[in-house]
């Protein structure tokens, strides 16, 4: 077996040193009734690199890759071009095969990268401090809700209808066990983001208000107004962003008064990967909240010779020290995805991110205008970044399937996202990025025209 260096000669010599007659003898603590004497039956035996690659390639070819079709899916995961440099650098063994940097003397590469990453995220979000990443946007969102409960000592969570329904689902699942009380209604598909109605539901028992920016419909809620109302009631505003490229064009949530800003970082550097691994981003506007934050934090310090260096710090918040008193049970962050994000963001820089955002917005506007001209289709949004919602004359879910058969991945149907909400069944969320070209947009328009005729 190509991954196992020991030879039979080695094994014999080592068993001699140990004083054991066989490798099986080393497993003597397992009762004979339960010990497996040979390979588990019914499973294949070892295979060559060629054979495994062939098997996996065959599976991969049963999927329609986004790059092989006009592609308009978004709703929390976005297809962006990732420069070849990113993938090359994250595959350097010193990054790829390193452990969590608990030994800072020999992990400055990862640590400095994390410090840079935290600084980039904090700036992008308009916050003072960001952590070293979390599993994904949905778990980061839940952790923010838990943190707000700790901070305000209240347990009523007001979730805006515009939050991604899977994020809501995660929060509802976890709340069942932690006794947080979740107030949530699915969105109304109209141009107005519904800030007025949301504000009316904030009260003195509200721990936090959770608002996605831009939201699942593609609208851009007025965070400053919501922040003001939340703060007046002693509640925190949690802003959730699932498309970081949008923040190249939109005001940063922290600058609008959001207290905790969380989100999905997948768009920058990570790729679609059928949903994971992704990259949870987590930041707080006021550095006073740092000790309530979940997740790893990297900080600057000096070494014994006075040289600048970086370490994981404030680790007393974490499970390996606090055990049942930890701020979160999370142990792993999303280090390699954070590296990919940071490299891509460094390649972009301020100028590149602004340009990328502008290009996304331009193409999305173009697509919205062309789609609005398709008979029977109405564009719901007045305001959007690179994603907007169509109201169709028919149920969107079967339509999306029919278009997929024609080789067009038309977007994400609200029917799939909200299976229980009949009022949303005709909604289709369409995302347009720099990877979409005008020919793709035309292909979508004509496929829709044909299908709706």
């Amino acid at each position, binding site marked *: 077996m190509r991954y196992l260096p020991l030879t039979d000669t080695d094994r014999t010599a080592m068993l001699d040193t140990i004083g054991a007659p066989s*490798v099986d003898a080393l497993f003597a603590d397992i009762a004979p009734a339960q010990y497996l004497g040979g390979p588990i039956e019914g499973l294949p035996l070892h295979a060559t690199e060629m054979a495994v690659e062939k098997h996996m390639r065959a599976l991969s070819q049963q*999927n329609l890759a986004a790059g092989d079709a006009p592609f308009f899916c978004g709703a929390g*995961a976005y297809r962006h071009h990732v420069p070849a440099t990113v993938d*090359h650098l994250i595959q350097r*063994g010193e990054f790829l095969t390193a452990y969590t940097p608990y030994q800072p003397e020999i992990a400055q590469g990862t640590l400095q990268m994390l410090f840079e990453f935290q600084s980039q995220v904090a*700036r992008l979000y308009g916050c003072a401090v960001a952590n070293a990443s979390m599993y994904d946007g949905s778990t980061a969102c839940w952790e923010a809700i838990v943190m707000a409960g700790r901070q305000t000592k209240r347990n009523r969570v007001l979730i805006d209808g515009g939050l991604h329904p899977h994020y809501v689902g995660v929060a509802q699942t976890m709340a069942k066990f932690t006794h947080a009380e979740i107030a949530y209604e699915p969105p109304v598909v109209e141009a107005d983001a519904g800030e007025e109605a949301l504000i009316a539901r904030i009260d003195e028992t509200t721990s936090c208000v959770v608002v996605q920016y831009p939201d699942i419909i593609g609208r851009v809620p007025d965070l400053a107004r919501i922040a003001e109302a939340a703060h007046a009631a002693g509640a925190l505003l949690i802003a959730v962003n699932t498309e970081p490229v949008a*923040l190249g064009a939109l005001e940063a949530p922290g600058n609008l008064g959001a207290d905790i800003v969380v989100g999905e970082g997948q768009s920058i550097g990570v790729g679609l990967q059928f949903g994971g*691994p992704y990259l949870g981003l987590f930041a707080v506007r006021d550095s006073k909240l740092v000790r309530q934050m979940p997740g790893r934090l990297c900080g600057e310090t000096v070494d014994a010779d006075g040289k600048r*260096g970086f370490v994981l710090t404030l680790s007393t918040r974490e499970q390996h020290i606090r055990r049942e008193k930890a701020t979160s049970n999370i142990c792993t962050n999303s280090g390699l995805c954070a590296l990919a994000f940071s490299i891509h963001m460094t390649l972009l820089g301020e100028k590149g*991110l602004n340009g990328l955002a502008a290009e996304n917005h331009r193409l999305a506007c173009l697509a919205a205008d062309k789609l609005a001209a398709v008979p029977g289709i109405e564009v719901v949004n007045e305001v959007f970044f690179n994603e907007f919602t169509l109201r169709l004359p028919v149920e969107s879910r079967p339509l999306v399937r029919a278009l997929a058969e024609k080789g067009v991945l038309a977007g994400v149907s609200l029917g799939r996202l909200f299976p229980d909400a009949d009022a949303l069944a005709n909604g289709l969320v369409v995302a347009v990025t720099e990877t979409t070209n005008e020919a793709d947009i035309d292909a979508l328009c004509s496929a829709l025209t044909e299908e709706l005729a």
Partner: protein
Amino acid sequence: MNKPINQSGWRPGTPMASEDAGAHPTVTGNKALMLEEPLIFEIGNAETTGVDLPQAKGDTASRLGSHARKGPIGLPGLSEPETVRHYTRLSRQNYAIDLGLFPLGSCTMKHNPRLNEKVARMPGFADVHPLQPVDTVRGALGVINELAHWLIELTGMHGVAMTPKAGAHGELCGILCIRAALEARGDAREVILVPESAHGTNPATAAFAGYKVEDIPANAEGRVDLEALKARLGPDVAGVMITNPNTCGLFERDMKAISDAVHAAGGFVYCDGANFNAIMGRVRPGDLGIDAMHINLHKTFSTPHGGGGPGSGPVVLSEALSPFGPLPFTAKMSDGIIQLVEEENASEHGHKQAFGRMTAFHGQMGMFTRALTYILSHGADGLRQASGDAVLNANYILRSLDDVLDAPFGKTGPCMHEALFGDAGFAEGMSTLDLAKGLIDEGFHPMTMYFPLVVHGAMLIEPTETESKAGIDQFVMAMRSLAERARAGDEALKTAPHHAPRARLDEAMAARKPRLAWSEPEVAPGSGNYEIPGAG
């Protein structure tokens, strides 16, 4: 809030940083292949970009409304060559499995095959959206299902929840399954029992799920005290969380009896699967009565640690717990088609008791492709050989060092895949930390230290199966030398490492005055050594 980028033009590594370079100072602070690297904020600027964007054609009216950004973000950009150099230089300050032995107990730092990486990057896996119509992602569902099948067969369990994103997330999934199962039968129990030697995530997870945590006592040989456990079981105990092999590197011989006792008292058994690498293909947790166990794909199945994630923690479940596993999941139908089960079709697939959703999409697909590739490469025979070699390597280290290091549980028999030592016999003032930092100078990553808590100055060494005998012999030689130095009280160890990119770092300073994001330094360019503001 947003500060301008590097207005002062200050950067480290210029002449002032060189005075500690020993007998042969350099003006740059660099030492041949060891290159100091400033932060991107110190070398980048707002005008530079390493990405060429398409030239915008035509113009459309903005739909951003009143929400357009008003000021700069403050993000530095680098050109492509500068970017490559920056991250390449940083990478060289890291230790990694690709460089050498990584004996971190309970972390299973094994070789990461590159075929895994190649497969994960096939466009049919890497470039697929999680919400594409199901008919366009049959191969992706096939990967999830095929991996699920292997995990079930290898563990002898009934079902598997694939979505948890890492070990601790998997633990939470397992505990929530237990809680949902108890609630479904109207049985409110409040206590989870956890051994003192457990990973800190175990009590943190149980507490997060709303349980009170109590210790399970251990016996003198480092295993769970079965009689004491039995005495504690009762109608208030929801379950136990046990690590097997345990964190002392020993197999819990009484596991089946423990499970039977817990079940008889109406509770469930959670097993922390962090150490599955020791027993893969040798014993099936299902045969030991376990109800739920997470599997760290980033440990046992070689998906890369990536400097701290991403991980992946599928949870195998017993027949009693399977109906409660979270959505979404895949299931093979009688017609052979693999179905994606989500909220809307959970009832029709007999899964209406699912406790909910733990993550937005389908779990760590990129890790699934890698883990399946690894498993198919090994096959049932190779996986069994892997656990055998892992245990052989650990026992070889145990017996090669137990005359110079105290092995508190090593006398009574073999260990599993990790060897545990304590600091008994070290000279006054010498610590496990000193020995571990000495190991850095010898070219190895330190072992897991001060864990488990039940052994004073614990050193937990897990070589894994992907080390050669020659590599291990060199490690043993280094360890024997360091053990002698620690016993003799060699003062030079107290300031080790001496050859790493950095000497010991001041962690107290980092925690007292946290500096967690870059901001403009409060020194003028070229004015001397850089000092952290407020660090005094």
